[in-house]
């Protein structure tokens, strides 16, 4: 093989490797709604989920659901806001503040620490939060209620 041919083959191989690595990182991701294993929560429709996280009460079988915001991963939070709530972070915060200020209630608490988030999930009856499916599947004591988003994070 001539040197130029070897060089071309090497470049193609390198490009192929880079593409393979990139594809692995851009694999499909799922965000799921979870609760504590002891809590029974039926799957929520997209409008119900929006209502819940916009500070409006959602009650299932006499149980008031308590939304918790998962701020442990900035990418997760950004996708949640864009694909589930359909608001920018600034507009979401303002709308939450406006809703609570007008009609009372509480803004969903934001947790930036996974251990604290899980502890709150288990402590509050009716508490729900969202997380990567891959994370939910590895954490003990949680119940996956359903998928709320699926796509590429590339």
């Amino acid at each position, binding site marked *: 093989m001539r040197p130029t041919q070897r060089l071309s083959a090497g470049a193609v191989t390198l490009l192929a490797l880079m593409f393979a690595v990139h594809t692995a990182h851009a694999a499909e991701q799922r965000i799921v709604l979870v609760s504590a294993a002891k809590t029974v929560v039926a799957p929520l429709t997209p409008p119900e989920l929006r209502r819940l996280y916009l500070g409006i009460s959602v009650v299932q079988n006499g149980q008031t659901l308590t939304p918790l915001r998962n701020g442990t991963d900035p990418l997760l939070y950004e996708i949640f806001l864009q694909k589930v709530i359909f608001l920018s972070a600034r507009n979401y915060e303002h709308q939450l503040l*406006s809703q609570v*200020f007008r009609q009372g*209630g509480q803004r969903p608490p934001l947790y930036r620490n996974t251990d604290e988030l899980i502890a709150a999930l288990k402590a509050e009856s009716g508490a729900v939060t969202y997380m990567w499916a891959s994370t939910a599947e590895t954490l003990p004591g949680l119940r996956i209620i359903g998928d709320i988003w699926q796509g590429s994070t590339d």
Partner: protein
Amino acid sequence: MYASFLLMNRLLSTSSMALLLLLASPLAQAELILFPALTATERAGLNPRPDVQHAGHTPKQSELDAALNLFYSADKGRLRLLAEALISNKHPLSIERLQAGWLAVPATTVWLGRHHSPLGYWGTQFHHGAYMQTAIQRPASSAFGDPGDILPTHLSGLLIEGEHEQGDGSIDYTLSFGAGPTQGANGKLAAFDLAHPNQGTHKPGAVLRLSYRPDALASSEAGVFMGYSTIASELASVREIRQTVAGAFFNREQGRWRWIGEIYGVRNDLTQPAGNVRSSFVNANLQGEYGLRPDWTLYGRAENTFGDRNDPYLVHFPNFARERYLLGVRYELTRNQALKLELSDVRVAGDSYDQLALQWSAALP
């Protein structure tokens, strides 16, 4: 019947305080938000108005106002408490809202307590949170306190709020019934005070408000309202005012634009020693906002009053802005702090002036 109404108000005061203690317990889920605001105002063109009633309330040439609005809400099961208190350099602590609610169904709340009258859009959208509204000044028809509210801004009694889903949209309804204001010897309207239920004569009032939202979870809406109040007066020249208010409003948000509009038709039947007299006028305002950038908003508003010449009711509110045009800019300092600069041209009874105001406001945390 009026004695029964008075008894209800006294029970309301007592039960509100008891519920406050219950829901302030550590077991309740709670939210505390502070809304501080600092406002510097300069006015030019002010003239003495010796011929105007209650002229002692003439606006000052320069003012620096500091205010802190405290908001608290707590839930315990289906019970909900909501409280809003205002402290400022102009007034000692005043309880603006104190409501105990029952979430009857997820979309309907039945409240007891002192609440903001659901007339119009501004009152129940922004309450006393300066940070929540884009502009510094409120429209004259929605003014709180100084320079004088001409319409009942607070009722104390029953408030029912709910919504009925219509596809993706909703029809929102609000019904309010309770003790309205009294008109003091200085002409100003003074709302029922839960802490002093025996002060003043507070006769009943009622308001019904309906609105439609094309998207139940978005802010755009349009609606109508109607209210009726009987206002006892301590003025020598007026014994009682029977006030009917009807109007419409809208809030339209699309892209970078936002439009807020209100129109009020007001009729007052004044019972006077010399004989009864009727007053009627229309007040309207339209505000446009443009989001130049995510942190910069330009806004402007026009307000006007029609049929107000020699109005026997408005004569007691000399600082009511019968006409106003303003332009302003709002800058988001941080995610929860804002700076506003506003220039306005104001016409009141017997005078007109220009005003420049600068305000810092926040919502903490």
